[in-house]
């Protein structure tokens, strides 16, 4: 046995995967032919990495990132995005591509499907409504046939509940994965930040929590009415967590995810008018942030997404109202989770690996022999200061730069090959 030489051996890794029989053990992991070949002690390999006790997870999967390539590839392109994702710990990223609104999302889906790069795998997201306008069904089957793994309406609220229902019916008949971004158009109005005392102090028009709550409630009720599962994308307020928790207690097939920055920042920071904090969904109150974290802990929320929305300087270095929503986040997802010490390494695996794969209906990657060697080594307690010098994305809109953070991915392995290292 011990005379076997593996292509790569990761030494002294703590297994964080709750589905693995080796969870919480510190072991060597031998990789051969792109697969996990063995877990044990003193394994010999052609190449070694010493994990020094860091935690090992199945490769992380990001359910939602945006890339304006093709169309505005100077802001972000697939190559840079895949590199940033790899350095953020992701082996796989679902990407809504193309400069939006795009009239032919199927061609964008094919473009992303055919992308081959040295870093993370990219999986196309389809648009659920034409031009992401929220008004008409887009060609869901066509896009699925061309590789779309799930469908989203981006940041645009659906026009009305009728549209919401037709979309669920249409996607449901073929079990397509639909991300519902819930925001009631009329209640959200022209707001740009969370409606609360901070917005009042700053004279900024708010997006009230009720705008999300009403849409989440409608979404759950319509799904129940149609007897279909539903996935709610990027919730941001305490009321949504409560609604989803209640639905799940009733046994309804409702799942949800949350954008990483909503776990790390809140609306008390808006005072600076830093447009990198202009996000969709908006940063909400500190109590919302706490409720989201509780939702992660009790399993109400199944996944954390990057919500990577790269923007160029021309879209951000302007007055607040004229600035685009979004932040460059692929490399700071871990630095968002690390802020919550209550989240144990097993939670990280659940939220970044098992949860996303389950939502997409993919086979789980479990840390045991025979599984694909898609792995992420991470340290939830490492202290760091994200900065532009580590940035792999083309865009510069990252609100965490210069802010002390906790938590990072250290090493990302795809099919047995190291695609990113952060140390």
């Amino acid at each position, binding site marked *: 046995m011990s005379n076997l030489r593996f292509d790569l051996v990761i030494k002294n890794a703590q297994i964080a995967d709750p589905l693995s029989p080796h969870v919480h053990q510190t072991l060597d992991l031998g990789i051969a032919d792109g697969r996990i070949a063995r877990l044990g002690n003193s394994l010999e390999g052609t190449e070694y990495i010493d994990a020094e006790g860091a935690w090992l997870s199945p490769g992380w999967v990001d359910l939602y990132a945006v890339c304006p390539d093709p169309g505005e590839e100077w802001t972000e392109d697939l190559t840079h995005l895949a590199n940033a994702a790899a350095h953020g710990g992701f082996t796989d990223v679902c990407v809504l591509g193309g400069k939006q609104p795009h009239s032919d999302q199927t061609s964008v889906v094919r473009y992303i499907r055919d992308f081959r790069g040295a870093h993370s795998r990219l999986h196309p997201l389809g648009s659920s409504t034409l031009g992401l306008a929220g008004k008409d069904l887009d060609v869901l089957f066509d896009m699925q046939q061309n590789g779309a793994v799930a469908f989203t309406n981006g940041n645009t609220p659906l026009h009305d509940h009728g549209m919401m229902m037709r979309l669920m019916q249409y996607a449901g008949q073929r079990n397509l994965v639909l991300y519902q971004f819930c925001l009631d158009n009329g209640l959200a109005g022209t707001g740009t930040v969370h409606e609360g*005392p901070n917005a009042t102090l700053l004279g900024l028009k*708010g997006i009230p929590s009720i705008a999300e709550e009403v849409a989440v409630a409608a979404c759950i009720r319509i799904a129940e009415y149609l007897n279909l599962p539903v996935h709610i994308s990027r919730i941001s307020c305490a009321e949504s967590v409560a609604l989803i928790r209640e639905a799940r207690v009733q046994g309804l097939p409702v799942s949800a995810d949350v954008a990483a920055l909503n776990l790390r920042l809140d609306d008390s920071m808006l005072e600076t008018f830093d447009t990198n904090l202009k996000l969709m969904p908006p940063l909400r109150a500190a109590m919302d942030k706490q409720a989201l974290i509780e939702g992660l802990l009790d399993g109400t929320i199944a996944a954390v997404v990057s919500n990577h929305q790269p923007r160029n300087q021309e879209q951000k*270095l302007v*007055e*607040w109202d004229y600035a685009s929503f979004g932040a460059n986040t692929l490399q700071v997802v871990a630095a968002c989770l690390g802020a919550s010490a209550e989240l144990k390494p097993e939670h990280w695996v659940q939220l970044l690996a098992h949860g996303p794969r389950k939502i997409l209906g993919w086979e789980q990657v479990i840390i045991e022999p025979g599984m694909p060697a898609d792995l992420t080594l991470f340290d939830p307690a490492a202290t760091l200061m994200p900065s532009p010098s580590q940035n792999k994305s083309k865009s510069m809109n990252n609100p965490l730069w210069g802010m002390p953070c906790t938590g990072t991915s250290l090493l990302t392995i795809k099919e047995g090959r190291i695609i990113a290292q952060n140390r």
Partner: protein
Amino acid sequence: MNRLLSTRHLLGIRELNREDLDLIFETADNFKNLLNSKIKKVPSLRDTTIANIFFENSTRTKVSFELAEKRLSADVVNFSTSGSSVSKGETLIDTVKNILSMKVDMVVMRHPVPGACVFLAKHIEVPVINAGDGTREHPTQALLDAYSIRERLGGVAGKKVVIIGDILHSRVALSNIFCLQKLGAEVMVCGPATLLPRHIASLGVHVETDVRKALEWADVANVLRIQLERQDIRYFPSLREYTLNFGINKSLLDGLNKKPVIMHPGPINRGVELSSDVADGSEAIILDQVENGVAVRMAVLFLLSQKIDNN
């Protein structure tokens, strides 16, 4: 000992402390005396160039600033454009930096976007004075309002001031709330429920939708212009309906136990928020506000120019 403001810019009342407010008022007292004397001009800002940059329409604020600047002997350039800088294809920073390359020492800016002056102050070297930024603040208006209350009632502390009208879209309301509270006044806001920010009470103000009760409570009523142009959707059905509910006329005032001082930042929609007999009546100090505006702005410009010298 030369007293100085605690800030380099005047971006909002929120950033000022009580000492700043007292200093501005005492300085304004001196300038007001000057404005009522024969020679209305002083050389304080000679060799100082001030750019008045207005990205939004304004008549009285612009005139008031320009007069204040000229009476301090500053050189003045005006740049006005309606619509966003974006639609003109030039960014705000570019526009202002272009003007500053011509050796300008201070910028007075009005802009339709909240926080625009905060953004600008981060990117340029010279003092910025906010002449109104969207629905955020209009600090010099609040200063002249408080100054006028102080003048009429002998002080602001302990006075009850109600701000009536569209509180949701009003930078005047927000700056007034901050200013009056720092000076020890009690503040109430009154208007249609659809035009009261949901979290306004978090600022420590009373909230009222019955204008008669509000007036009965108040020592001072600061009546805001109903700004239909700032409303993206209908918050009340018609001006007639507004006037019926919130308009202040003589018979309403006559029915009160005591009449409050009536203020208005202008321009008045006569017959809408104020009837003419109230606007022109003995309780109104609307033209005093306008007069005091010049003295208060002179004080602000003068005090901030000292900050240039001290840097």
